[in-house]
Structures are given as structure tokens and as C-alpha cells.
């Protein structure tokens, strides 16, 4: 979508209407006239675009003037796939590790609230020495930290428990993204209020219309939790919790409470709906695992991936690997459905609890192939096969599906989601 400033640049004070650059249409008309009819006839087919029949040689037409807030090229079409409650990142068309803020996945439980940052407050109370309330300005005065971290919804790939379901990697792995996050360590702010010795859990609450709440073990989250106000260098996007969200490196996205308004310290978990009825993992014996916070090591080939078509010859296999427990150590790629594996190249920097881009040079011979990636993290943990994961947990646990993803390439080069 074009923003108004793109179509009608606001003239600066120095630019009077008389001094406006010559319009592109006017310029080209003059230029073509000057060249003469035969010359215009010769260059016209390559020079003129279908959309704007006048001026497509950018070296012959003055370009657009600067704009106050940029937008991508109008020919770029990558977009999130949206439903009523979430949207999915299009990893099949993205590069590197940073997800553009506008394409970061969304998951909210009753819409994205509109919050005035000047009115927003963070309340800290419960088992603290001094209950405190902070304005955004207060929070931004504290010493700050910046980290590049993935956030993955624990429901990412969740439909794959029931067999190959998603058509594209956006369907299967779109509930994860990576941003550079900036904020103040939770530890710094809680120390300001003074943590009482008996405090062991903290309830984090959002100011959306779900008033989303999760209980978090205090000792764990004090290690590295951040109260973030910035994403990729600017204020958080509204759908990412503007003006303040909790970011817990490597933990399931739901715990990273957005639109954060309150932290209450207590002795025990508060047993909210989102940590009992939801976000618990049902096992075949009927028990459910609770407080399954960490997102275990996982990888996926983002290209070639479901819905794409490749040509015989050189194809770079590209993908993402990540682990909530720390660094990705290795990624291996198989083109024969997991019979043989070869190491992929990891693009640096490799950061803890962050997407790592991997690449593997491959020449497709036109025969059927099944492409897979598997990663290992610094703890030695290796991403499991689907069979091993299902053997351990059955197929009804809904969350935390991190099995190896398989993409089948048929003889026409068409890529589809399969499970082997």
C-alpha cells in the first residue's frame, strides 16, 4: 500500500511550487520529441512500462523525492497470511535472519489494542519491598540492552502433529520471527522495587482485551528477561506489544506478554487459563505437561519449500535453524529423505536464542528428492525425526512440534510437504 507521502511529497520550505522538479511525464514527452520520431519508436518498447506508458528508464527520469517514512518497492508483494487470531511470516521469500517488522508473525487473543504511550504504565507489586509504577519515559531511562532473538509461538508447526498439513513453509513455520529487541533487563526494574525473599513466581499481564496473563518462575526469568520498547531500531509495532512487551529469550511466544501493564510477584504460579487449559502438552497417558517454556532446537528449509518449483541444475538450499537453549552448533541437510546427511554452511553471526541462516549448495538432477534439515544445539540436543517425536509424545500435545520437516521435489520440480 502506498502511503500518502509517496504520492504527494510534502514540499519543504525551500521548495516553492515553481521550483518543483519537472514531472516525469512532461520530461519524457520533451525528451522523446527532441529525439525525433524514429528514435522514439526504437526505444519505446524497452523504455515504456506496461503500467505507465511513458518513462521506465530510471536513468532518464528524475526519481522520487525523499519521504518522511519509507515503504518497500511497490512491486514487492510478500505478505503475512492472516486469520482472525494470528498471521504467518512468509519465510519462503525472506533472506538473512531479521524478519521485517511489518512481516513479524502475530498472535493475539482478542485483537491488537491501541495504547497511548504517554498514558501507559507498568505496575510492579505483590511480594516487593516497594510497589512502583513506571511511565514509558521512566523505563527508557534505565540502562538498556539490545539482543537479536527469535520469538516462536509454541503452536508453530502444530498442525503437523496430524500429518503433513501446511502447503508452504509459511503455513508450517510461519508462527516464528526474529527481531532485534531493545529494552531494560527485568532484573534492573524489579531490583528497583526490591524483591522479597519469599517471591518465587511473577505474573505478567497485558493490557489487551484478553488481559493476557502468564506465571513465570522468577529465578529463571531474572537471568535474561527484557522489558522491550523497541524492535529493529524503532518503537515496537502495535501487534508486537506497543509500547512495552516482555521478551523471554528462547521461551514460547505466549510468555512474552505484549502490551505489558503489570508484574505481580508471588510464592506460587497463579494458574491462569493460558497455563492450564492452554499451552499445556497432553500426553498419550492423559497427563499434561505444564510450564513447558523452552522452545527446543529446530530447523527448516525455507527454499526450496512447499509450493515452489525448481529447475534442474544449481539450487542453493536455504533455511533457518534455532534453539531456545542457546547456540545452533550444526545444521545438516539431506536430499534423500534422511538416508545420508551433509553439513550445511552456517552464516554468521550465530547468536544464542536467535535464528541462524544456513545454506547448502546442491545440483538437482531432475530425479525425485526429499529435502530435510536437522540441527544440533550447544547442549548436544539434536532435532528429532517425526517418528521419534511422536513415539515420545503421541500426536495430541498440540504444542512444541519441532520435528525434521520434509519437502518432496517431484520430477517436474514441484515441491510439496510430506512426512517420511
Amino acid at each position, binding site marked *: 500500500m502506498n502511503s500518502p507521502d509517496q504520492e504527494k511529497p510534502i514540499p519543504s520550505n525551500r521548495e516553492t511550487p515553481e521550483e518543483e522538479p519537472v514531472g516525469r511525464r512532461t520530461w519524457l514527452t520533451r525528451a522523446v520529441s527532441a529525439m525525433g520520431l524514429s528514435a522514439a519508436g526504437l526505444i519505446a518498447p524497452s523504455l515504456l512500462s506496461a503500467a505507465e506508458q511513458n518513462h521506465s528508464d530510471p536513468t532518464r527520469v528524475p526519481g522520487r523525492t525523499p519521504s518522511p517514512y519509507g515503504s518497500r518497492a511497490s512491486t514487492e508483494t510478500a505478505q503475512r497470511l492472516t486469520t482472525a487470531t494470528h498471521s504467518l511470516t512468509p519465510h519462503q521469500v525472506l533472506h538473512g535472519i531479521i524478519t521485517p517488522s511489518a512481516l513479524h508473525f502475530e498472535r493475539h487473543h482478542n485483537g491488537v489494542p491501541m495504547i497511548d504511550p504517554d498514558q501507559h504504565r507498568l505496575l510492579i507489586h505483590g511480594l516487593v519491598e516497594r510497589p512502583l509504577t513506571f511511565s514509558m519515559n521512566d523505563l527508557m531511562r534505565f540502562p538498556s540492552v539490545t539482543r537479536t532473538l527469535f520469538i516462536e509461538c509454541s503452536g508453530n508447526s502444530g498442525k503437523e502433529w496430524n500429518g503433513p498439513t501446511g502447503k508452504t513453509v509459511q503455513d508450517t513455520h510461519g508462527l516464528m520471527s526474529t527481531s532485534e529487541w531493545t529494552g531494560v533487563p527485568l532484573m534492573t526494574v524489579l531490583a528497583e522495587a526490591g*524483591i522479597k525473599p519469599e517471591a518465587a513466581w511473577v505474573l505478567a499481564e497485558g493490557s489487551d482485551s484478553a488481559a493476557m496473563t502468564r506465571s513465570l518462575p522468577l529465578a529463571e526469568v531474572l537471568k535474561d528477561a527484557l522489558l522491550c520498547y523497541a524492535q529493529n531500531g524503532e518503537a515496537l509495532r502495535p501487534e508486537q506489544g506497543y509500547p512495552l512487551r516482555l521478551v523471554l529469550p528462547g521461551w514460547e511466544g505466549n510468555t512474552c506478554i505484549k502490551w505489558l501493564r503489570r508484574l505481580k510477584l508471588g510464592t506460587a504460579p497463579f494458574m491462569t487459563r493460558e497455563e492450564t487449559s492452554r499451552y499445556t502438552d497432553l500426553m498419550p497417558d492423559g497427563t499434561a505437561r*505444564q*510450564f513447558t517454556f523452552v522452545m527446543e532446537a529446530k530447523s527448516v528449509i525455507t527454499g526450496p519449500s512447499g509450493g515452489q518449483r525448481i529447475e534442474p541444475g544449481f539450487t542453493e538450499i536455504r533455511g533457518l535453524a534455532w534453539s531456545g537453549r542457546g547456540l545452533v552448533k550444526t545444521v545438516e541437510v539431506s536430499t534423500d529423505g534422511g538416508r545420508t546427511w551433509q553439513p550445511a554452511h552456517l552464516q554468521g553471526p550465530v547468536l544464542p536464542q536467535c535464528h541462524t541462516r544456513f545454506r547448502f549448495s546442491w545440483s538437482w538432477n531432475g530425479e525425485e528428492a526429499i529435502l530435510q534439515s536437522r540441527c544440533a544445539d550447544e547442549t548436544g540436543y539434536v532435532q528429532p525425526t517425526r517418528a521419534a517425536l511422536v513415539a515420545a509424545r503421541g500426536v495430541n500435545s498440540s504444542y512444541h512440534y519441532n520435528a525434521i520437516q520434509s519437502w518432496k521435489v517431484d520430477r517436474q520440480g514441484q515441491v510439496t510437504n510430506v512426512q517420511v
Partner: protein
Amino acid sequence: MSRCKAAVLVLSAGGLVVLLGGVGIAEEPLRYGFGRPPTDAEIGALNIDIDPTGAGLPPGRGTVQQGTAIYANKCATCHGPTGTEGPKDRLVGGHGLLATEHPVKTIGSFWPYATTLYDYIHRAMPLNAPQSLTPEEVYSVVAWLLHQNDIIPADAVIDAKTLPTVKMPNRAGFVSDPRPDVPFR
């Protein structure tokens, strides 16, 4: 050189602050003086969570009978006339199916704490008007849902005293995180 030494000292002091600030350590960490004490009214306006002890439950009471009308008016459109029809979450029934191929997770079959019902219904329901129900209405809907799930009798009264004592069928159904649980080489 002396500059470097100073930097190391500052860093050490920073590390010390972090260590001393840990849970259960009484030493006073560095404070910046940002923020201000909230008023009781400011805390009260946000302090809506209800934990399993029932702390924070407001005065008031509700009955199954009162809940019948409130559920029909405010909840049935999404959850069905008897709490089983949907289209949104099924709330009633499903007992004994958690360990089968087709588990049904409802309040009766899955939720471990009755207090979560008050907390969640008050904070987030109905979806189009969260926090609009009075305490009496919430208690009543909770009573109706517990009765529909055969957990309390038809003449039960739900209030701040009785709700935390309600024993949910799946109270013992939750275990802690055993991961990594999949063997790796």
C-alpha cells in the same frame, strides 16, 4: 591503562549488583530512583488475578439457577446452549477421554483449578465485552458451568469461600516439563 582498570572495577561492581539482586538475597542493590509508588486505587484497578487460594475473590455469590439465564444470554451464542455445541470452545463433558485417540479438553475434563474460571471469565469473557460481568454474574456462570460438568450440585452456592474448595476432576492431571524427552545420539 588506568582507564582500563577503572572500567574493570565498574564492571565488577555491576556484576556484584546482579548477584546481590538475586532471589532471596537481602543485600540492597543499586537503585536509580525511577518510578513512583502507586496509590491503592491504582493497584486495585489492575489487581484482578485470582490464584488457587482464592485470594482476591470479591464479595458476592452466585447460584446455578442464576447462572442458567446469564449463560443463555451472554455465553451460549459462542459455546452452545449446553456448553457442548460450540462453535467456540467446548466447556462441558469429555470426561474420561484424555488418554484416548480423541481427547476432549473441557472445564470438567481438563481444567485443574476452579478459581481459574473466575479469573478468566472476569478478565476475558464475553469476548465482545470483557470485564463487563458483575461479580455476582461471574460467580453464577461459574456455578452453572461447574454444575453442568457434574462437579457441584444444583443447589450449590459459589462465593469467595466455596470456590477455592471445589475439587476439579483433573486436578492431579498435570506434570512438570521432562524435556529433553526424545533420545538423541
